């Protein structure tokens, strides 16, 4: 007769201490490379960096402070390759994008949407929209553009890129999760 299964003790993995740093660094690096080589089609280029940190945040669910760190580093990496009139605006916009993504992920997890398949798509879109919105708003002030240019021309473009980024985040989330979190029975025997 089979023995009765004892009460199992649940423990959190200790590996998570630094793993999020490694994953963030790797994905941001990939994001920078893709950001540099991606062609501009009809004025629209996906923002790979935002897509990558959205994946990271969805995967590792960092604290608010850690998300600020991720956003700051992501912004810094974009400054040297930025072709905009105010490259430093990337730091502020990515700080906003990363924290938006972090807050959304936390809110979704708390409201039972932890395993919702569309979570990466929604968070990827929102992070991009907020980040792009902030960046273009900064540009509007720096260049002294009228507010109508911002919300009639810039924001719709940001929304399109947001959709594109949401789709990228959604499509890449699963393979990346499989790559970094291959802990199931199949992979581990």
């Amino acid at each position, binding site marked *: 007769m089979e023995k009765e*299964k004892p009460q*199992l*003790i649940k*423990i959190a993995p*200790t590996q998570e201490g630094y793993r999020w740093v490694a994953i963030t660094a790797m994905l941001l690096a990939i994001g920078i490379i893709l950001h540099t080589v991606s062609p501009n089609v009809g004025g629209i280029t996906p923002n790979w960096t935002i897509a990558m940190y959205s994946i990271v945040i969805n995967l590792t669910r960092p604290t608010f402070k850690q998300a600020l760190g991720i956003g700051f580093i992501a912004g810094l990496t974009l400054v040297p390759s930025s072709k905009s009139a105010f490259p430093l605006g990337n730091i502020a916009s990515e700080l906003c994008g990363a924290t938006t993504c972090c807050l959304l992920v936390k809110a979704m997890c708390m409201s039972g949407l932890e395993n919702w398949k569309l979570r990466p798509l929604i968070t990827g879109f929102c992070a991009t929209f907020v980040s792009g919105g902030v960046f273009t708003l900064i540009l509007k002030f720096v260049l002294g553009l009228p507010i109508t240019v911002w919300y009639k021309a810039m924001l719709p473009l940001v929304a399109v890129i947001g959709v594109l980024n949401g789709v990228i985040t959604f499509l890449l989330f699963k393979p990346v999760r499989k790559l970094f979190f291959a802990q*199931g*029975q199949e992979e*581990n*025997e």
Partner: protein
Amino acid sequence: MASVINFKDFYYAYINEKLVLRDINLTVEKGSFTVVIGPSGAGKTTLCKAITGIIPYYMGGSYAGDVEVLGESTKGKRVSDLSLKVGLMLEDYESQLVSLTAGEEVAFSLLNHGFPAEEVKERTSKALEDVGLPGREDYQLDELSGGQRQRLLLASVLAVHPEIIVLDEPVSAMDPDGAESLYKLLSKIHQEYGTTFVVVEHRVEFVLPYATNFIAVKDGQIAAAGTCEVVADQVYADPELRVLLPELWQVRGELAAKTGAHFSLWRKPADAVDELKAQGFEGGVQAHA
């Protein structure tokens, strides 16, 4: 013989997964060369990870029971604490190589453990010599062949002088000559230092001449464990596990079942030929019958 690894009513499940190991009660004897066999997905690798402390404390999950290594529970121990006692070589050994040169690679773990520079140099040189790579301290890793890189990793493990070395399918990607050569080397280390070896292996024929004990894992449970003689008979009796036995032992089991004759445990084809000749099997089973 004293035991160095003890599993006591051990259960384990990865995070959000079903149980991978169930009711594991197991003892590995000091100085043994234990081979772990089992179908894919049976829990062999997870069993090895439990010995090195990677599960449950590093990877997290749910567990019950305990694993003792060298008399001490692995509970709450970091992988780095255990790595002084237990060395691990993964199937994907390349993922464990972290340095640019062979010398740096071997020295890496020693330096992390705080060994003095003189001792690091001495141990590095000795470990490289032990694995047949003497004087290669300054070689870049890409100057070494795949087999040499695997031996380099073995040198890194040996340099720490662990009492137990766990290897997960070390010859899975090797040609037969490479596989034989690696097991010869492991056997030499086993005899020279009395290190306890636990090896997960699908290609059992290569490790057969050196194995002292076997563990058969099936569906996360121990199906058989003990000396080769005991496990060979028990595993042969299970049609699902029988195919995992080395071909020599499958033939032995089949012959024994057909003729009722008793055979010793063949380690090499030559042993089988000699014994079959001695028992009058020349010309086939039917001739004997």
